[in-house]
């Protein structure tokens, strides 16, 4: 079920009413309803893969229980590795099996040895990369004794399959989300209203910004061989905005929906395109994944402690793994590597934690130096996204070589003025709201309800009139 579908528009109010009117008396019932609704939500796409979520839930629940009663360190390690192997095993099989087989065959044939191995026709279960990481965080935190394993199976199941964030995150930590399932939720008017605003803003980002940019980005990337360098630059910029609108829009809807049910999910985006360097960009982009890798991979590897080579190695590992997490294609690996290269100079000069404060704090506009840094960071990001969007490395290569040709200075074949204007308005609104969680929080501090509602109605009408062709969220494929 897509968040921007009619199905979800019917599903959400029904679950909301049942949740607050029928099950609000008991915590157990509240959690049970979340489990049933979440399984229904996921099964709407493909009910067969519910068994996978259930199996993953059972494995991690019992491993958690096992870790509680086990004091022997070797046995505890064994339990943890069972969880890691089961979860990553599923992920590896469904997401990477064909990639590895194809690459093995290519590698052997390169050295003159023909081997026969057939790829399988495997459907990638939606959200597997997200809920796998979420359940892993539980086992690891229990192993590290950072979290008391739960006895409440229903609460744990609800934590794993919580429908707002099941298929595309934010990837929640057990330490943050699971305890919220232990307390009966009480309806909070302010929270629910803000949730609605965040949903509205998320839909605006997705339906108006991302889907409109997608039209041009797809057209340009799919016909890149026949277009000028200037058009390809525009295509890369459109994709850059599309992926942000799409994914942060999804996160906004997920967080907003959770708030309607009394849950607080972690923030996933913090205006990343206003970043002044790449390190800041990665602190603001897909925060739940970046911090997951930081806590469960980078730090255990030694983090930024140790010598220079160790720092470089760890940086590359984390970016390459992050790239590979996005998909079984070398384009994602190169995208990750490129980001590691961007990051490296900051790390080696110890300036990766320079821009920790808010951008242009207490000022309306950034200083020229800040603006230049923001533009440079944005440019580097746009360049890296080319690899992310391209079908293959050769496609990315030819795309980039066309950009750096004389046609870069010709007029672009497509120049959708209306869309560019809309993007400008969008970023202006985001800039104004950069201190808040989303652009509609506080609605620019307008007191009169009629004006606030006027803004909501205009946004709502934009969404309704642009609705029709549902575009899937990009991050569903990961």
């Amino acid at each position: 079920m897509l968040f921007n579908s009619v199905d979800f528009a019917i599903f959400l109010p029904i679950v909301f009413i049942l949740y607050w009117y029928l099950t609000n008396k008991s915590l157990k019932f509240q959690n049970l309803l979340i489990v049933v609704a979440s399984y229904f939500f996921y099964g709407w796409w493909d009910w067969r893969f519910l068994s996978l979520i259930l199996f993953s839930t059972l494995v991690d629940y019992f491993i958690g229980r096992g870790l509680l009663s086990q004091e022997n360190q070797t046995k505890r390690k064994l339990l943890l590795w069972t969880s890691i192997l089961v979860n990553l095993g599923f992920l590896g099989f469904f997401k990477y099996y064909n990639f590895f087989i194809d690459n093995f065959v290519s590698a052997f044939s390169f050295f003159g040895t023909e081997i026969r191995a057939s790829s399988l026709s495997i459907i990638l279960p939606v959200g597997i990369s997200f809920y796998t990481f979420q359940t892993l965080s539980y086992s690891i935190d229990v192993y590290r004794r950072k979290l008391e394993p739960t006895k409440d199976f229903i609460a744990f199941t609800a934590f794993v399959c919580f429908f707002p964030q099941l298929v595309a995150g934010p990837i929640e930590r057990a330490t943050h989300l699971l305890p919220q399932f232990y307390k009966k939720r009480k309806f909070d008017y302010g929270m629910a209203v803000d949730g609605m605003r965040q949903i509205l803003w998320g839909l605006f980002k997705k339906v108006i910004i991302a889907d409109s940019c997608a039209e041009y980005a797809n057209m340009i990337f799919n016909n890149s061989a026949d277009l000028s360098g200037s058009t390809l630059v525009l295509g890369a910029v459109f994709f850059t905005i599309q992926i942000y609108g799409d994914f942060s829009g999804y996160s906004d809807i997920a967080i907003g929906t959770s708030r309607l049910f009394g849950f607080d999910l972690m923030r996933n985006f913090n205006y990343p395109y206003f970043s002044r360097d790449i390190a800041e960009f990665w602190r603001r982009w897909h925060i739940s994944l970046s911090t997951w890798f930081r806590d469960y991979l980078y730090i255990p590897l030694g983090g930024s402690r140790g010598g220079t080579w160790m720092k470089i190695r760890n940086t590359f590992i984390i970016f390459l793994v992050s790239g590979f997490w996005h998909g079984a294609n070398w384009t994602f690996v190169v995208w990750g590597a490129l980001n590691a290269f961007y990051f490296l100079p900051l790390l080696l000069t110890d300036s990766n934690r320079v821009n920790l404060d808010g951008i242009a704090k207490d000022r309306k506009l950034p200083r020229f130096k800040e603006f230049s840094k923001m533009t440079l960071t944005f440019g580097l990001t746009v360049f890296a996204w080319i690899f992310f969007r391209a079908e293959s490395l050769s496609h990315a290569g030819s795309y980039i070589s066309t950009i750096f040709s004389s046609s870069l200075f010709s007029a672009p074949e497509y120049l959708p003025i209306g869309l560019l204007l809309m993007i400008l308005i969008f970023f202006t609104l985001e800039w104004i709201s950069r201190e808040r969680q989303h652009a509609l929080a506080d609605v620019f501090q307008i007191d009169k309800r009629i004006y606030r509602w006027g803004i909501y109605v205009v946004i709502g009408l934009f969404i309704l009139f642009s609705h029709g062709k549902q575009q899937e969220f990009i991050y569903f494929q990961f």
Partner: protein
Amino acid sequence: MKRFIKLTTVFLVILALFFIVPVLISESVLRKNAVFELKENTKHLIVGHSHPECAFNDSLIEDLQNVSNSGEPYFYASFKLKEILKDNPGVETVFIEFANNNITSKMDDWAYDDMFLEAQYTIYSPFMSQKDRSFLASNNTSGFINVLFLSSSSNINRAIKRQFNYSLGGFRYLDRDKTDSLVQLPLPTVEELKQFRQNLKFSTRSIQDLKKIIASCQQKGKKVYLIRSPLHDRYEDYDFESTYQKIRKENFSDIEYLDFSKFRLQDSEFADLEHLNYKGAKIFSTWFNGLLQKGLLDKKDKQKFIEAEYQSRLKVHSDTSR
């Protein structure tokens, strides 16, 4: 909680009002100003789906316009035809394609499957009644709601830009020839045929829609003929020919039926087993024009006349090839 639900409901009602009012205004503007204009002096119309669309090259047939459209079931054709007849009182004759697949449940899919809804509803929504809309909504609720949004913005756009000229369809020039490979395919086995017939479902809706079209044409004093465009001998839906004929006789015995399905053509003149390519269309359309000039519509037994013309054509053909 109550306050939240109350305010959310009020907001949604306001939003719905702001959405619905411009939609209704634009639909009414389009209804009033829509132009479905035919070529000058058009007396005959061809209506139907892709079969007649590819068969009747109207540039070769005097006083005739082909307004067929691929994937257009009677449900949508009825709106178009109604508007065409309103704007073009000079039309005397309406030829409506009635092929074997016109009575199958495939026509229902063509009415309300997502892809067809998107293509057709956005065009014809201003001309639909509430009953027509509820037919679509009851068969594909989520698809219908989606297309409501899509058609709303398209209608508003159209009304603002004053684009009142509607596309009518027309002859489709097909430059392909897949028949050689299609005829190589093995014939269905007895078991497969049995299975095919068992699974076959017919569309009562399609038959009702055709009846409505005929009644509306007759009300306006137009002469209606059901026709069947040329088909290849291996056309798949011949497999239920007897049922097709039975349904036709039961429902449309009072409407003259002109069957061109046995019009002889080479494999290379078919695009596939049910569509003519441009070569076949040229031969058939020239012949059909001759038929009209010879007074086909004044003949008492038109099908007999058509078959006699088949024979004389074949005779001429074999004489010249000798």
